């Protein structure tokens, strides 16, 4: 055990009930280095770092700081130990000024309990100069740019004397200029003796600033190497793995006319920043197009724009020849479009309604489910029973509340509902998330069956195995646009991983 390491995480395991998020992970960070943590969605990176930040405690394993074993039971304790986290979703009070946000909880006061604003401002200005973190101490956080807000988060940690800074996917919300700024700042920080852990899935960032990188996959640490000595291919392979899982049998596709056409689409996310940047894509009848990409690269906003749930900033969406760019969700659905949303709890089901009612969410207002505004519950229940049987949705009947179904069965129910309506365009996000092997197989078979019937299918998934298995064409999305369209037979997981992480086709 060399004392070169400021932080060692030894054999860390974290369980949430049955689910193992971190499985005997080993991580060590040297003083003055930038150590990248690379992995796909759900690999366990954030969970691991949340333990360092005092937001979670390990189920087993040891955390050693400067040679001493410690327990980090709260963020305050983490701060005491010199650990500071720059969250992906900022923990900033919009209505407060930059200074107020930085000093909150650690204010210097005079005898009367009054905050010494002058002293605080002076300290912040000094810190700001030292590390090149430009901020206006008197500005309201709500009014400053996202890049500036991030600098405030960084200053928060430095104000409390952090020596180890953890950055959780820091560039997800930044413009290219702001990203360059941030990478410069990181170099200044380590020059001043700080150590940094950088959680990311972007290879070019790792190349730009990191000294070493630890790759995590499905909760396990795979490799820890010097960045200089590893190729992008190596990194991509460690990130996504080489294993080829089961393949679903299918005949060659026979694509016909274009059903969905997206042209130069620009969609903003909630903060007003573009999440979809000039994206163009076509989906034809009789084919399955899979969109591969790491979460947060614009997939959600893209699907929301197509289904009418989010207004596009510019560009055009055409379904079966009709310009639907500004259509309401119901109008789009009535053009024979089915949508299985990625977050079925929040968006696809109403958990407090019965399973049967959930099956009727898209059809309740039409005959034969209702007539003249009166619902026909026997038809609703009958339909539900039929679908539950056909799609093997398991539960104590159609009259139990939706929340009583297991997560996997909820997913099956939503998929069943949409497929049963026989839509010409079927959009599915994360189709097999949380399902067991049997269910996964069945759902994939159904998707291919739809395609064989001549329907157009658009699948968005974080699971590369799934994308490779069902898609006829794969479009990789990164940073809001399509980085490459490849055929599954002609590509590898490594190539996909690389495209997903921002690389380009050779």
């Amino acid at each position, binding site marked *: 055990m060399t004392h070169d390491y400021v932080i060692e995480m030894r054999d860390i395991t974290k369980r949430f009930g049955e689910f193992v998020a971190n499985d005997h992970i080993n991580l060590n960070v040297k003083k003055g280095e930038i150590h990248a943590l690379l992995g796909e969605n759900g690999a366990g990176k954030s969970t691991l770092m949340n333990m360092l930040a005092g937001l979670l405690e390990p189920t087993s394993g040891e955390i050693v700081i400067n040679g001493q074993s410690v327990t980090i039971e709260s963020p305050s304790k983490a701060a005491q130990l010199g650990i500071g986290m720059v969250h992906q979703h900022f923990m900033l009070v919009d209505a407060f000024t930059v200074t107020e946000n930085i000093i909150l909880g650690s204010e210097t006061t005079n005898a009367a309990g009054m905050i010494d604003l002058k002293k605080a401002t002076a300290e912040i200005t000094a810190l700001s100069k030292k590390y090149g973190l430009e901020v206006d101490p008197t500005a309201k956080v709500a009014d400053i740019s996202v890049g500036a807000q991030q600098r405030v988060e960084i200053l928060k940690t430095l104000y409390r004397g952090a020596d180890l800074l953890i950055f959780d996917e820091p560039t997800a919300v930044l413009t290219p200029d702001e990203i360059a700024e941030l990478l410069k700042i990181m170099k200044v920080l380590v020059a001043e003796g700080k150590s940094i852990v950088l959680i990311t899935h972007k290879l070019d960032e790792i190349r730009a600033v990191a000294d070493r990188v630890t790759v995590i996959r499905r909760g396990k640490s795979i490799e820890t190497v010097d960045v200089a000595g590893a190729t992008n291919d190596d990194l991509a392979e460690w990130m996504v793995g080489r294993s080829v899982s089961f393949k679903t049998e299918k005949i060659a596709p026979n694509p016909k006319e274009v059903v969905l056409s997206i042209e130069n689409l620009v969609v903003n996310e909630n903060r007003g920043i573009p999440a979809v940047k000039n994206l163009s894509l076509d989906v034809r009848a009789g084919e399955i197009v899979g969109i591969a990409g790491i979460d947060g690269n614009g997939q959600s906003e893209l699907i929301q724009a197509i*289904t009418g*749930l989010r207004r596009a900033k510019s560009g055009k969406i055409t379904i079966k020849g009709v310009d639907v760019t500004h259509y*309401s*969700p*119901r109008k789009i*659905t009535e053009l024979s479009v089915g*949508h299985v*949303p990625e977050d079925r709890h*929040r*968006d*696809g*089901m*109403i*958990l*407090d*309604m019965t399973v049967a*009612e959930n099956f009727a*969410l*898209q059809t*309740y*207002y039409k005959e034969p489910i*209702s007539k003249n*505004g*009166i*619902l026909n*519950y026997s038809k609703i229940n009958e339909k539900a029973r039929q679908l539950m049987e056909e799609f093997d949705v398991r539960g104590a009947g159609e009259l139990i509340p939706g929340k009583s179904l297991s997560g996997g069965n909820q997913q099956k129910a939503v998929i069943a509902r949409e497929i049963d309506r026989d839509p010409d365009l079927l959009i599915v996000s994360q189709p097999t998330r949380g399902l067991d092997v049997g269910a996964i197989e069945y759902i994939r078979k159904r998707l291919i069956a739809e395609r064989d019937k001549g329907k157009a299918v658009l699948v968005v998934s974080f699971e590369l195995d799934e994308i490779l298995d069902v898609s006829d064409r794969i479009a990789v999305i990164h940073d809001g646009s399509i980085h490459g369209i490849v055929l599954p037979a002609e590509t590898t997981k490594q190539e996909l991983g690389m495209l997903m992480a921002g690389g380009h086709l050779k």
Partner: protein
Amino acid sequence: MLKKYESILIPLMAVLSGLLLGAVVMLVFGYDPIWGYEELFYTAFGSVKNIGEIFRAVAPLVFTALGFAVASRAGFFNVGLSGQALVGWVFAGWFALANPDMPRPILILGTVIVAMLAGGIAGAIPGFLRAFLGTSEVIVTIMMNYILLYFSNHIIRDVFADELMKNTDSSINVSANASYQTEWLRALTDNSRMNIGIFFALIAVFVIWFLFAKTTLGFEIRAAGLNPTAADYAGMSTKRTIVLSMVISGALAGLGGAVQGLGTFQNVYIQSSNLDIGFNGMSVALLASNSPLGIPFAAFLFGALQVGSSGMVRAQIPPELVNVVTASIIFFIGVKYIFEQLLKSKRFAKGGK
């Protein structure tokens, strides 16, 4: 096993806790709680007249409670029931006073329609503001209580024709044609003020139950209240749903006010504060967990407590204690989290999951 009965168990536990608290208060101040509750019980149920009075009190409460429940199902807190009920009362009364000789069925129908219109419009305002401007309905409805209160008083004092007024502050009684009270009910219940309002109320219970159990509108209201995002995803227009549910809510409250006015009091007069059937209706709805079928029972409890309270004087206890009890019951409904945790631990102890 316990879970099935939870929806009845928790209100029951709240009622018992409220009664218990009332007993504690009585003890603390040197009264005999058993005697007090006995007098309450005997007064409430001891005479045909009083039982009639209970039903008389139940009718308006059922309406305001249904109003709260409908809005609640849509995810809306309608705290403005008092104001909506009051305008229903005033305008229905006005209609009745202005048309004393109209044939009875038409006159009654007329008052019902006018009351529902007045209440519905009063409810639509916060509905529109919330649906289209995102304004919080809690504050708007509270403010509207007072706006409508002063507005109504103004109408009565300054707009009602002179010949309709008994004195500056109250009108003459409405004609027998317009009154919701009837000869046969009076005879049946030894001259209580029980009136046909109770039948209207029961019809309303059925209508609202049907609304939520069987109609597409009810379906949309429930969806908007339970999960507005999923409702949007299902293509529903949540804006339209919010406004409609507030119109229905206000209309119900307005009719409740008409029942109170034309059934209990038979005239229209200046109010010095918000109608108590407003907040009591809200309490009844909360106690019944916003279930249309449960509301008549909860209203009956409140009505019985109200009518029986006068009897507590015989035990030397100020009748205001009953209001303390009802407020406590609602408190315990508010903190039902405690009961839920208690029941959960009991279930756990029984070895289930």
